[in-house]
Structure formats: C-alpha cells, structure tokens
C-alpha cells in the first residue's frame, strides 16, 4: 500500500477560498454596515493563508463579494506592484477566476491599503479599505465596551477635546492619517490610515466604501452618496496635506498626492503615490476626472476651506 492511498483525495477549496457560510455571514454583516453607515459591525474573522495584519480584513470582504466576472484592482499605499498587493491580487484571482486591472476606472472591486485613488470612482464600484484599527475612540478610552457605549450615545465630546488640545498646543490639527470623520451625521469613524488628502473623497462619493479590520473583527461602511465630514471646529477648518509646488518627477503632474523621495544631496524629489494613475498618464496622457483638479481644488466646491491659524 502506498502512502497516497491512505491520504484523502485532493479536494479544491471552496470558491473564493471561504466556505459558503463564511461568505454568507460576511455579506450579511456588510449589508448591516451599509444600512447603518459608520457603525462598526462585528464579524467572525476567518483564518486565511496570510497573517493577520496583512490585509485579512479587506481580503475577506473582497472574497465574499468577488465573482468570475469581477475585475479586481489591489493597491498598497497607492502602488499596484508592491509585494503585498501582488500577493493579495494573485490569491484573489487564483481562488475566484476574477480578472485584474491596474486601471481604477475598470475595477469593480478595488482593495486598498491606506489610499483612495486620485481618479473619481464611479457608481457601482466598491472600494475595500484594509483597516488596522477601526476604533476612533481608542485614544479616548482603552476600554472598548466603554467606547461602544460612547458610540451608542454619540458621546463624542472627548474626541473634540483631543482636537482642542491639538489646537492649543500646535495651533493646528496634527492628526496625519485616520482623521476622525463623522459619517451621515451619526457615527465617527476612523477612515483607516488614509492621508488627510483622501478623507474628503469619502464625502458624497458615488462608489461604496467598505472598511474591514481582520484582526479586530469589525467592518463598517460608507454607502454611496453619504455625508462624511472630518471633525473640525466652526472657526478652524480641517486641512489636507500641503504639497503645493511638489511636481511628479516622471509625469510632471502637480496637486495630486505625492511620495517624497529624499535625495543624497538633501533635496527631495516627488512622484505620484497612485501608480495606476501615473501609468495611465505615461501611456496615454489621458485619465478620468480626478478628485483634485490641476490647481488642487477639490471637486465638491466649498468642502475644503482656506487655513486659519486660531488665536489662543
């Protein structure tokens, strides 16, 4: 008798790796998250063949939504070609037979770590953001059941207090990424560690955004055309990163989110963080509409206001 006779017959995994029950649970959770914008829905985060903390939250959402006809784009910090993004992309397509793209506008599902693309996403598209820490109140209380109660009561005074303290000490809001934002006038979310530059893109977006934390086992959503406002005092407006004058070294573009490349001589060069957008510009010099125009003006006029240094 050979060893192979004793072993079980080789079986394929379930479609899209997760079993049917897991996918059903996730879809129900996603529906609930969409029904209560910004509310963190707990779910039974499954084991995956990648480690927690490497995008398992986003991956489970993607796997529960993907189909053979899907077109998937995966980015990591804006780049399609990072190891992490490539791994996730290969795993998703192997398990589902979905096609892939690096064109933001061609994707039906766009899974991202820490960026929202520069081109305005369209109705029907789904943006899946990987979230390390879903709880915006973590800085306010270490007790998560207390945080739960604060959300329930919309008791966000302490979040505002953090901003007050920043203004008193630094005369500006200093939170760089995960800028706390109020969704649909009700729940404050951490929009995952996207830069402040990307936060306004969630406001009244045509696409669906799903945010999922695999390790923390919670997901939440910003449905299409939902109000999202970063926390800001009436007299001290929220500001995105100031990258005025930063020019992409390969495309010559300005007023998009840039990566800074320090040079040996102490100066810096800059390149577009959104590599798919950069490729598009390089190949065809044509792209879709962008959230910020060439002058850096945001597409919802009046949403972003000029900076104010508050007197203290």
């Amino acid at each position, binding site marked *: 008798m050979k060893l192979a006779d004793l072993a079980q017959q080789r079986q394929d995994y379930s479609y899209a790796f997760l079993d049917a029950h897991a996918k059903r649970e996730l879809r129900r959770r996603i529906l609930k998250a969409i029904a209560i914008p910004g509310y963190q829905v707990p779910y039974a985060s499954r084991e995956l063949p990648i480690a927690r903390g490497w995008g398992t939250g986003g991956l489970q959402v993607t796997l529960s939504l993907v189909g053979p006809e899907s077109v998937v784009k995966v980015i990591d910090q804006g780049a399609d070609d990072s190891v992490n993004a490539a791994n996730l992309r290969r795993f998703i397509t192997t398990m589902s037979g979905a096609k892939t793209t690096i064109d933001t506008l061609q994707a039906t599902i766009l899974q991202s770590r820490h960026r929202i693309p520069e081109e305005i996403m369209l109705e029907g598209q789904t943006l899946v953001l990987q979230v390390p820490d879903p709880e915006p109140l973590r800085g306010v209380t270490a007790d998560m059941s207390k945080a739960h109660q604060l959300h329930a*009561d919309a008791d966000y005074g302490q979040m505002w*207090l953090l901003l*007050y*303290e920043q203004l008193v000490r630094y005369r500006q809001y200093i939170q760089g990424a995960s800028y706390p934002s109020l969704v649909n006038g009700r729940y404050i979310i951490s929009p995952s560690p996207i830069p402040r530059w990307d936060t306004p893109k969630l406001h009244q977006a045509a696409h669906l955004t799903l945010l999922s934390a695999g390790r923390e086992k919670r997901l939440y959503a910003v449905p299409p055309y939902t109000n999202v406002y970063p926390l800001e*005092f*009436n007299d001290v407006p929220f500001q995105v990163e100031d990258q005025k004058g930063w020019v992409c070294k390969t495309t010559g573009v300005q007023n998009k989110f840039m990566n800074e490349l320090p040079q040996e001589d102490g100066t810096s060069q800059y390149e577009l963080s959104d590599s798919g957008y950069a490729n598009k510009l390089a190949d065809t010099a044509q792209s879709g509409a962008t959230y910020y125009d060439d002058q850096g003006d945001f597409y919802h006029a009046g949403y972003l206001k000029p900076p104010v240094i508050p007197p*203290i």
Partner: protein
Amino acid sequence: MLDTSSRPLSPRFEPPQLVTSPPIVRAIGLHKRYGRVQAVADVDVEAYPGEVLGIVGESGSGKSSVLRLLNLEEQADSGTYLLNTPVLEGQDLFALDRFRRREVQIMNIGVVYQNPHLGLRMRFTSSGNIAERLLLTGERTFATLREAARESLSISEFPLNRMDDPPRVLSGGMQQRVQLAKALALRPVLLLLDEPTTGLDVSVQALVLDTLKRLQRERHMTIILVSHDLGVIRTLADRVMVMRHGRVVEQGLTDQILEDPQDAYTQQLVHAKL
C-alpha cells in the same frame, strides 16, 4: 454604651412658612446598598435656592454616597430625586434612562471632588478640562471654548497665564480651582462639593473657601457641601445635616448644630472636633 432610648427627640420644626419658593433639590427616601453595607438609609435631602447645605459625618457615614447619588453617578436602590428647574420640574431623575440622566447631569450639576484625579484629566490642558464641558453640549467653535474657559477660570480666581498648563503640574489649590471652573462652566443650578479643601494646606484651604464663599454670594448658587471638617462647614454652610451609619441623625442651622447639638452623636462629634 449610650442609652439612646431616653434621649430627647431632635426637635421637629414647622414646615417653612416665610420661604415660599419650593426647594430646588428634593431627594426623598434615598437608599443605597453596596453588597452587605447599607451606605445610605432613608435619607431626605432638601436644599433651597441659593442655600449652602452641609453634610457632615465621619468616614463611612454615607455622606459621599449621598453626593454620588445626587450627582447621578450612581443609581439609588430606591428613592426619588427632583430638581426644580423649568425643564425638569416634577421629573424623577432616578427614573431617567442612562442617556437622559447623563444629559441632565451635564446641564444642571457641577461637582468638585476631594481628589482632583476624579474630576480632571491631569494630562490635558486646564482650559481643555473646562472646554470639555461645553463640547459635551455641542459647542463647536474654538474661540467660544477659549472664551468660556477664560471666563470660568477667572471666576474661580485661577491665574489665566497658566490656563494651558495641565493640572498635573499645578498645586493642589490650583487643581481645585480648575475643578471649580469646570464645575461652573455650564452655570449649573446645583454645585456639589465633596471635601473640596481636604488635603490642602491650611492657608490654601482658606483661599479656596474664600473663593467658594464669594461665588456663592455673587451667583446665589445652591451648593451641597460634604465635609468632615466642621471648620469648613462653619465657614460655608447655612444648614447642616449630620449623618451616621447611612442615616441622618440631626439637621439644623449650622450654628445651632455646632453650638446646641441635640443628638448624642452630634454632641460627640462637635465636642471632639472643636
């Protein structure tokens, strides 16, 4: 052993005739038990507008428990609690749900604790501690928060050049002033003071008491003051309730309690401390 059966009853006075306004605080039949300890047993608290009511007793007498009930920090096992404001008139505050109770607490009650760690965020700015009260009510204009913090801090005679220092670097007396400013920020109808000057230097204590006295006189505020220090009580309180083992053993005008105590326990307490 004291023979309590033969002692004269505490005098029972007539109900108020000249004071026609109803009490602003009316808590009736308060009971609170912690495990096997009956911390508060059948306590009534009434305070009239602009009055300072003192509650004295030794440690474990239940006086601080009463204050926590009045601050809506804890639920009474039984009893009713009315605050006679236009909005809350006739509403038993113990019957409110958690959300509404918190709202009522924020809008109507200020508190100063003996331990500033209970009342303050020690690592935030002092002004932020005050601003937080306004933030809880939905104030979202930074300049307004600054102005309110400035006003409250100067009312409690705190030096404004230190308004953005965190309480942890301040002296005990200054920390109590920050607590007081925070308590007053929303102009509460009721101010609760839990041993506000205990642990301070005698000279600092006198200054804080003086601020409280001045405030009370100028703002005509209703204050309920818990202290084991009869000197503090004498300085601030108009009337006093004496508590022991969770019960009120005697109440009266402050000078009457201190100089002609009727109850055996009060006599002991007064003679021990004076």
